[in-house]
């Protein structure tokens, strides 16, 4: 049993489906809307009959009323493929007041992956550092979850972030529409991050961003001078935190505002989360917000 799996939490969240906000392309029938017309019971539209159409789909009642042939089309339901992109750079190792950001990312990814597979969708995992180095392809099988969890479990954050390259690669590599969940502290240039979000959006992926921060990184409260050593490249700086707290918070605020703006521009779900935030309300709110309005 993995430490980041909370069975009680998962059982409580099981009733909430994970919905896609964009139509999905799948190879099996699922519960998610597909861009293709299919055999679902949900009516989509009428269109004129053209030779070659399946005559079984002719609406005879419409023919009787209008003396014209109409084909009755229904929504097609398909399955969802989710890609969890977990930033495994050195900065994700940081923990001070709460748990490490990587551990929090593990818990989110594992919980959502379980819920997805449990509802018949596929979940895949991409781990990125300065280059994309580990990938678990999406699968609907329950046995696949164990591989998913094991990969998460073995994850050791190190080095500089390769999130941007990883996301560009995913955007190009995934042929069909997918649900991309990004779990990172996003310590990169917001403009570049905005570009990669636009890239994903261009490929019609459904994007969710979990921006993970440690409470200490937000509060920046210290009682004495510190020598700060960068977790990614080892750069160090001796500083009196009280003296630079205002400037630090201003810089961080600018960064968060920019990231939020970029996510908004790319129609991505954005969740700024500190690692001391309880997981259940976070996921419950996340899942509820994704429900179609008629299902609320």
């Amino acid at each position, binding site marked *: 049993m993995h430490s980041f799996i909370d069975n009680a939490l998962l059982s409580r969240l099981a009733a909430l489906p994970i919905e896609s906000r964009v139509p999905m392309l799948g190879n099996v029938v699922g519960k998610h809307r597909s861009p293709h017309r299919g055999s679902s019971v949900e009516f989509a539209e009428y269109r004129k009959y053209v030779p070659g159409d399946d005559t079984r789909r002719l609406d005879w009642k419409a023919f009787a009323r209008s003396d014209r042939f109409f084909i009755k089309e229904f929504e097609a339901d398909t399955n969802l493929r989710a890609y969890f992109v977990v930033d495994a750079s050195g900065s994700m190792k940081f923990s001070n007041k709460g748990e490490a950001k990587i551990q929090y990312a593990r818990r989110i990814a594992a919980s959502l992956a379980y819920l997805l597979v449990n509802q018949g969708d596929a979940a895949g995992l991409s781990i990125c550092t300065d280059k994309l180095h580990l990938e678990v392809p999406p699968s609907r099988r329950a046995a696949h979850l164990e591989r998913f969890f094991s990969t998460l479990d073995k994850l050791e954050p190190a080095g500089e972030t390769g999130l941007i390259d990883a996301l560009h690669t995913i955007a190009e590599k995934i042929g069909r529409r997918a649900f991309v969940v990004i779990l990172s502290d996003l310590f990169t240039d917001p403009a570049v991050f905005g570009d990669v979000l636009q890239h994903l959006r261009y490929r019609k992926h459904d994007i969710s961003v979990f921006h993970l921060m440690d409470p200490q990184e937000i509060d920046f409260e210290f009682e004495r*001078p*510190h*020598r700060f*050593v960068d*977790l990614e490249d080892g750069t160090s700086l001796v500083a009196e935190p009280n003296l630079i707290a205002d400037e630090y918070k201003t810089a961080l605020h600018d960064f968060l505002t920019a990231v939020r703006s970029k996510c908004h521009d790319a129609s991505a779900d954005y969740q700024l989360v500190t690692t001391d935030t309880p997981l259940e309300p976070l996921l419950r709110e996340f899942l509820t917000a994704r429900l179609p309005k008629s299902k609320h």
Partner: protein
Amino acid sequence: MLFLSPMFLWFLAAASVPVLIHLINRRRHKTLQWAAMQFLLKAARQSRGKKKLRHILILTCRALGIAALAVAAARPIVSGLIGWGGGSIDTVIFLLDRSTSMEIKPGDGLDTRRQIVIKKVRDAMADLGAARFVLIDSASSKPQEIPSPEILADLSAVAATDTAADFPALLARAAEFLTDSTGRTEVWLASDLQSSNWHPEDDDRWAAIRATLAALPKSPAIRVLSITGPTATNSSVRLLGTRRTGDELLIDLEVVRAGDVRGSATLPLTTHLNGARSTETLTLPGQSLRFQKRVALPAGSDTGFGWLSIPVDGNARDNAAFFAYGPARPAKSLIVSSPGENADYLELAAAPPGLDSLSTQRVDPEQAANAITADLSAILWAAPLPTGTTAEKIKGFLTSGGQVLFLAPGGPSNITFNDLKWSDPSEPPAGKFFILKDWNHSDGLLRDGIDGTPVSAHRLKAIRRQIPLGTAIPLARWEDGEPAITRRVVDRGSAWFLGSIADYTWSNLGDADVLLPAVQRIIAAGADRFDTSYLASVGSDTARILPGETRTRLDDQDTPDPANAEHLAGVFRFGDRLLAVNRPPQEDAPEILTREALDAVLEGTHYTLLDQAGQANDPSLARDVWRAFIVAVLFFFIAEALLCLPNKQAINLKSEIPNSKPATP
């Protein structure tokens, strides 16, 4: 600045604690693996400058707050007298003004200025501890070492006197003393800054003193304890002169009310004469009153003495004027003139009928040399200026204090006397007169009367005149600006020149408006030299004991102080001499030395002026200023707290995190 508890000054070292803590903290920092480095680097870049300055200010406030606390605990005493870093003074030379003016009481106390400053200096010396203390008082001008400041007030060398101070002389003595002194020395001058005591006009003496001080191996610090400010109500009486006429003594007096007083006032004036006493009420119409008091002498009294006094007031030492007198001596004058109208008028003016105390003799110019004798009061010379033996005799007469009035000779003359001569006679334009226009109302032959009544000199008109030529002081001028009356002082006497004569072909001088007062004043001035032998000022050569003499005080106006007898006013007998000794006239001069004048006389000495040291409500020359340092402590700590306050506009990032709350355990 002195400290009553200097051991607390060790706590000044604690001022470095905040800085040390800061430096140690910087060295003993905690290492932290940090993720959000990009913001930290940006913040560090931006916080240089303003934030660093703020932090330095915070540290400074902490250090200064602690330092001020340590200083306050050390009980600092600060004063302009002791000065900063005054704990190591080796010698203090105290120059004390013991003049009469120092005996005035400030308006807010019972002690005199002299007593107040002595107490304050005593206390200040006690604070200084083991410093050597040397007193030079203005009366004796002798340096004397004081073994303990506690006895200062009891010394006869600091007691009240009726002398005048001479600060150039005192500083010269101090400089002389300092040539043999080593270590850090301070000179404290206690004075009411009476200008007459400082002689600011005596540039040569002051220059010499400054040069002497500058030449010392180590220049002393000079502190001037200015004892000025409001005083108690005071009136003074001053003897201007005495003259005996028969059985009557004419005493010229001046009574002055000090300060800016208005309206009239009455004062009882008591006359003490040979043991008898009488009092009359004197009405002062303004600030001062000059008048002549006639005192009837006992029949057959050859010599005697007495004094006039007013009640004791703010200054107890200026309320008496002493006098003494000798046998009656008629005032004799000599008229040197050819017979004629002018000589007749001069004779009438010199010895008016009915005044037995005045006599005159008339001689021709050729006989003048034989007629000039030492007992003459004045010579009235209405002839060409003297020459030869006569001139020499007249010069001798002037040197001994005689008075000579030279009137216009009445014709051209090139004779000079003491570089003075007459111009040729001149006449005004037809139908015009030479009219006397400007004359000195306070000095000279035409001065106003002692009661202020002016002489009717404007009535003098001339149709002929001769101008006195040469270096002499003009005391009256004609309408066209030419001098009518001049004076040339020759040693103790004076030679007067009047540019017309009492003849109807010259002027109306014979009308007595000018001639009578002028002649009488010349005779009185000449006669005064016989009467003034009974008067002297304290400290003057006349008032010193001559070899073989002993000093005996005759009056009982004051409690005699044998140790200070030579510095006190009173009536004394010096052997065969009878002498009334009064305070020097300059002690009644109210002028105070200005700061500019003080700067000028002490230029280059870097002196310190401690103002208002004579106020009784200011208990000490030194002030306990620990409260000021406590205020400074509060100020620095409040400033530090304000600087440490967080920025009100600081960003609250937590509000941007929707689900942020502590995790449920």
